[in-house]
Every structure is written in structure tokens, then in C-alpha cells.
């Protein structure tokens, strides 16, 4: 097993795409199989060395950044172990190590006529990490988040013990877990909070009568290490069309999205005025009159295409959209669409923010359907009041717009922070979440406190101690370090 200690070579592991700095660790361990991984954890457990798990560093919340101890990196756990296809070729699952990129998962599925339905935008993320954050994407609207596609995981605990956790085997009774694994009894209560009824990835997944596997998925490396996963693939049957429609008024884009939600297209994504300004650098063909855009995808069976085109053109015409300017493509391949167009957005913003020299203040808030308009108006009003440069775009299908505030001075940065807290409080008061897909990591713990209060977080800490009694894994992720004491 490769162990890297040279600080120059390992400093890359002290970063992700957040602006959290100051990370440090003694060494990076790069095991190649579950046994080696278990041995690393066991030894660390005996020596009480903190361990931070690392994926590919595309996280936005500092989750993989260590503050002491060692890093357990998944780069070399990078093999797809098995592809199981049913006799009738209708169902398939893929068994994989955690360090395989989403891109490779997708390519393997595709080659065999299947696809992996969760589609987090960042394709270089490692699968293990995406399960640890319960990642989701624009198609989560139709397909649900990552957890819906996990059939089994192997979790390694801080004492080196391997918990094989298939879905459908161990359930809570209301909010009590009581089960035996590897000859050991686990008995504990789940936190008492109610998760918001929106797309959500903040804190431990908790529901009455829940499946044990769901506790580990989304726990951001604080309960155990995901050493292997069996993923459910979907069959490619329908064709897909992707459309980008440009609106003269941003509000029309917003309204159009609300109107088509009940028609259940595969995905609906929103681009506000400043988003389009940024995108014009890469896509000069964006019409100059446009101040808002909607990208949406729809599935259709071969033969019904004309009908579907008629439907969309009728709806778009109601909003005075010029159909000659609606970009579209079609494919029998569900994985192809305007992914690049959508992916440019966060990358362009990251560049702008880097240039600004201040750390990013960006949101991952989602609210219930009934509050979508109120939240959108609240964003618009507040940024207008304080005259901030901001960029608003994202998963409008699930009322999950990413707001990005880009300060121009240190004073503005402080104001932006305060403003962002207002957004959080507003969302929470409306039954929304503080993080819909990126997770809490190290940077959003104060927002988690807004959502669940100190009581909720302490209850999570109690669950953590069941699996990680010495509190060595993913320290300062999700739960504030001092709340573990």
C-alpha cells in the first residue's frame, strides 16, 4: 500500500473546491482493497489517530480537508468489480470500489445498454464520495437522489470492522435501531428531528422505520468508510430531448418552469440574467435579448416525438419565446444532452469568485413547491437592496436555486455573509433545507444548527458515537467538534 508523507506531494489533499484553507495531515494512505483499508482504520483506531476520507476533491464544503491525523484516500480503490445483468437483460447492478469516477460508472453502464440515473453535474467525483454526500443532480427531479440507487454497501468502521449492509435487511422500529452484526449488538435511538420535505442532504438521514443503509448514505464520512457499493442501473429505453429556451424577461423563465413542473419533464434548470452574461463568454450564440433561460429535458418513446415537440412549442409560444432560438438536441442516448452547457455554470462562477479574491458565498437551499416563488422573490429583493453582484441558477424543478453572492470588498463580504444567513432563516422558516445536495461538510455546520438546533445536532453526535465511539472519523464534518465531547 502506498503511503505518502512528503508534504509537497500531499498538499493537494488539503483542498477541495471550497475556499477552506489551513488543512494539514501527517500522511495520506492509499489502500487498494477493503482488507488494506480495514487495517489502516484498525491501526488508526488503536492509536487514536483522526482519519479523514478523501474522494476526488470536488466537494464544495471542505468535507475531505483534514485538520490533523491522516487522510484515507480512495484514489487507488478505483476498480469496477462486477456488472450483474439479469437473464432478460432488463435489470443490472454494478459492484464498485469507491474511487471510481462517475464518468467511468456511466461509461460502463452505457456500453451495456444501461445508465446510472443520479446525475450529479461534476462527473469527475468519485462514486464513494457521492454516496457519502447523497449527491444528486438535475434529474433527481424524476429519478431521486443517489440513495435510491444503492442496493448494498460495505462500510468499514473505526475499529476496522466491516459491516456488509444490504438494503432491505435491517430496519428501525419507529426511531429505535436494535440489531446484531458480526456478533455485536447495536442498539440506539435515532434523532427526533423531522427532515424537511424537500430535496435534502444535510445531517443524518432520519425517518421512522428507516433502513440502516440510509443512515450511512449521506453521513459524509463521519460514521464509517464506504469501501464498496452495489449500484442499481436503469435500462436505456426511451429517447431524450434537451432544450434550452431563452426568455426576454427572467420572470417568464421562472413562470415557465413553474408551469411545466406538473408535466414532469426529466429535468428543469434555471439561468438568471447574470448567469447568461457569464455564459455568453463561452456561448456567443445566446440571443442578446435574453435575460433568463430554462434548460429542460424530456423522455419520449420512439414515434411520439412530433407530438412532444408540438406540446413544448405550444407552451413556449405562450411566453413569447422565439422558437428559432430554442436550442435542442435529441438522442437515443439518455446520457447525452446539454450537459456541458449546464456544467459550465458552476465552473464559470468559481472562476469569477476566484478573481474576486474572496471566499465563495453560495447557496444550496431548497424550499417546498408552494414556497418557490416567495423564495425567488426574496432572493431578488434582498440582493437588489444591497446592490450585490450575484448569480442565480440551478435546479428550479426542485426549488433548489444556487444563489452565489460575489463581494467586491471585505465589507461587502461581511454583509454577504449576513445576507446569506437571512436566506437560510427564511428557507428554514418555510420548511426548506440548508443543503439540498452538497452536504454540510466543515463549512455549513452553523446552518445545520439553524435547521435542527443544538438538540438535533447532539442527537446526531450520539448516533456517531455508536459507530465511532472514540470520535476519530471525519472530525468536524457535519457535527461541530466541541459537540462531540
Amino acid at each position, binding site marked *: 500500500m502506498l503511503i505518502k508523507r512528503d508534504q509537497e506531494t500531499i498538499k493537494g489533499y488539503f483542498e477541495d473546491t471550497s475556499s477552506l484553507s489551513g488543512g494539514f495531515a501527517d500522511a495520506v494512505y492509499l489502500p487498494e482493497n477493503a482488507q488494506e483499508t480495514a487495517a489502516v482504520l484498525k491501526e488508526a483506531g488503536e492509536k487514536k489517530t483522526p482519519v479523514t476520507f478523501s474522494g476526488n476533491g470536488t466537494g464544495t464544503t471542505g468535507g475531505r480537508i483534514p485538520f490533523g491525523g491522516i487522510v484515507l484516500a480512495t484514489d487507488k480503490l478505483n476498480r469496477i468489480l462486477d456488472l450483474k445483468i439479469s437473464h432478460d437483460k432488463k435489470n443490472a447492478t454494478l459492484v464498485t470500489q469507491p474511487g471510481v469516477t462517475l464518468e467511468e460508472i456511466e461509461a460502463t453502464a452505457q456500453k451495456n445498454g444501461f445508465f446510472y440515473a443520479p446525475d450529479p453535474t461534476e462527473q469527475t467525483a468519485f462514486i464513494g464520495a457521492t454516496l457519502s454526500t447523497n449527491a444528486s443532480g438535475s434529474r433527481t427531479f424524476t429519478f431521486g437522489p443517489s440513495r435510491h440507487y444503492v442496493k448494498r454497501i460495505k462500510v468499514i468502521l473505526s475499529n476496522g470492522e466491516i459491516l456488509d449492509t444490504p438494503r432491505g435487511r435491517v430496519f428501525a422500529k419507529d426511531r429505535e435501531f436494535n440489531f446484531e452484526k458480526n456478533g455485536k449488538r447495536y442498539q440506539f435511538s435515532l434523532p427526533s428531528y423531522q427532515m424537511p420535505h424537500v430535496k435534502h442532504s444535510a445531517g443524518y438521514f432520519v425517518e421512522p422505520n428507516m433502513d440502516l443503509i440510509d443512515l450511512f448514505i449521506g453521513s459524509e464520512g463521519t460514521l464509517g468508510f464506504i469501501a464498496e457499493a452495489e449500484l442499481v442501473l436503469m435500462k436505456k429505453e426511451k429517447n431524450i430531448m434537451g432544450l434550452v429556451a431563452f426568455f426576454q424577461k427572467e420572470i417568464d423563465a421562472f413562470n415557465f418552469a413553474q408551469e411545466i413542473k406538473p408535466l414532469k419533464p426529466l429535468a428543469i434548470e434555471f439561468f438568471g440574467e447574470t448567469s447568461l452574461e457569464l455564459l455568453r463568454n463561452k456561448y456567443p450564440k445566446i440571443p442578446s435579448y435574453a435575460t433568463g433561460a430554462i434548460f429542460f429535458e424530456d423522455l419520449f418513446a420512439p414515434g411520439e416525438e412530433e407530438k412532444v415537440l408540438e406540446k413544448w412549442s405550444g407552451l413556449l409560444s405562450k411566453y413569447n419565446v422565439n422558437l428559432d432560438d*430554442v436550442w*435542442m438536441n435529441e438522442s437515443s442516448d439518455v446520457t447525452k444532452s446539454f450537459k456541458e452547457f449546464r456544467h459550465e455554470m458552476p465552473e464559470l462562477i468559481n472562476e469569477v469568485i476566484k478573481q474576486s479574491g474572496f471566499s465563495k458565498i453560495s447557496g444550496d437551499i431548497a424550499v417546498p413547491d408552494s414556497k418557490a416563488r416567495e423564495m425567488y422573490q426574496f432572493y431578488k429583493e434582498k440582493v437588489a437592496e444591497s446592490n450585490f453582484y450575484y448569480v442565480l441558477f440551478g435546479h428550479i424543478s426542485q426549488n433548489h436555486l444556487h444563489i452565489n453572492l460575489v463581494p467586491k470588498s471585505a465589507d461587502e463580504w461581511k454583509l454577504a455573509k449576513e445576507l446569506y444567513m437571512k436566506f437560510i432563516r427564511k428557507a428554514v422558516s418555510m420548511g426548506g433545507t440548508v443543503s439540498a445536495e452538497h452536504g454540510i461538510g466543515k463549512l455549513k455546520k452553523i446552518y445545520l444548527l439553524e435547521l435542527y438546533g443544538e438538540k438535533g445536532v447532539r442527537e446526531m453526535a450520539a448516533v456517531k458515537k455508536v459507530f465511532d465511539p472514540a470520535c476519530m472519523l471525519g472530525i468536524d464534518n457535519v457535527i461541530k467538534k466541541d459537540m462531540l465531547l
Partner: protein
Amino acid sequence: MDIIVCIKQVPDTTEVKINPETNTLIREGVPSIINPFDENAVEAALVLKEKHGGKVTVITMGPPQAAEALKATIAMGADEMVLVSDRAFAGSDTWATSYTLSQAIKKLGNFDLILCGKQAIDGDTAQVGPGIAEWLGIPQVTFAVKLEADPANKKVKVERMLEEINEIVEAPFPCVVTAVKQMNIPRLPSLKGMMRAKKAEVKILSAQDIEADPKNLGLNGSPTSVVRIFTPPPRGGGEVLTGEAGEIVGKLIGKIKDRKII
């Protein structure tokens, strides 16, 4: 302006695999696309149409399924499409292909400009555009990176991208211009165009329709023949230096010195 664009349907070479035993292309299951350079040619034609008015006709020689490629250009904004298709064309080389296309173009009536891609990404000869010009006896301007038309004076001004320099030339209508990738960014199909494409009709021309001389057609009309296609043997693998960064740098400098490069 009346513009004809020649397009070719090609396998998406980014997805092409080589059969390691026979060293030939595995074509099964490889999706077809429009030759990328030809999309640049279509875009250039549409830009000229937007500026000067007129009509864009897209033409391809190929099997019936090449109609899909034609339809995709209608979705981008082209007006008419022509599929030149006949069993007699099978096995055409560049001579026969350009002859066949030139005969079809003669049948389409008057035109001001023919646009082609610089080359096809599968055949890669870059001969068909110039071949068409020769058969029709009109000027040709290859490697166009900029194109302006002056319909009043019936001429084009073209900037050609050559290896070391760019060259600006003028040519009278009608002429053939071939497009390089750097010329423009092809537009995406539009929703309106897509709906038009669904309803649009493909005009099909056979060997008889284009009054072609059978001795210039297909395999028999092709003076060249492909003797063998093979993948060149892979180059010997390089040497991989391992170790910590400092160590590797030392080794590398040693190697460079050994070879008396420094």
C-alpha cells in the same frame, strides 16, 4: 444567394474502436454524425443567407440512412435537402464521388456558391471539394477561415488558413469553397427547425436522374483502390520514472544529460 452545401455522414470516430485481431474498424453500433467540417460549412452558408437572403440546399451522396444527416441540417436552418443515392454509387472513390456530386449539382439548377468541409474525418483525403470544382470547371478556394460574399458584384472574398500564413483571395461566382474548423461555431438545431425537419421532404436523385455516365460511377468508375487498411504498429512504450518528486527530477536530469541534450 443560392448556396449548395455538400455534407458527408461519417462514423463518430471518437467512438470508433479497432478490432485488435483484424486491425479493422469496428463499425457496428458506432453512431453516425455529420462530418464536423461540414457543419462549419452549413453554418457559413446560414450566416450568408441571413445577411444576403437566398436559399441553402444541402446535398449528400450516400445510403438512404444519410437522410438523417440531411434532416439535422434542416433543423439548423437549411432550406432544402437532396440525397444522391443509388446502388450504382457503391464503392466510389474520391474521383467517382466528386463526379457523382457534380452531376447532381448540375441538375439542381443555378447556384452562386458550393460549400464543402475541408476534409472528411473518415476518408481524410480533402479531395472531394476540389474534385467537384474540377468536374464543374469552376474556381475553388480551399481552407477558408473567413468568408464574405458580395452578391452585387458576384464574388466572394475568402481568407485561407495556410500553414504559416493566411492568404486573402477573391473568386467570382460560382465557385467552391471548403471550410476549416476555425471558421465558426456551428449553431445547434432549433426547436422550430426540428419541427420543420420532421415534415421536410428529402429529394432523392438516382444515377439515372443525374444522367451520369456509368463508367464514372461506383467501384468500376473508381481509378484508385484501397489495397490494405492497417493500424501502424504501436510505438515502443516510454520509460516511467517512479519515486518521490525530488528523486524523479534527479533521474530525469541524469537521462537528459546521458543523451547529451544538456
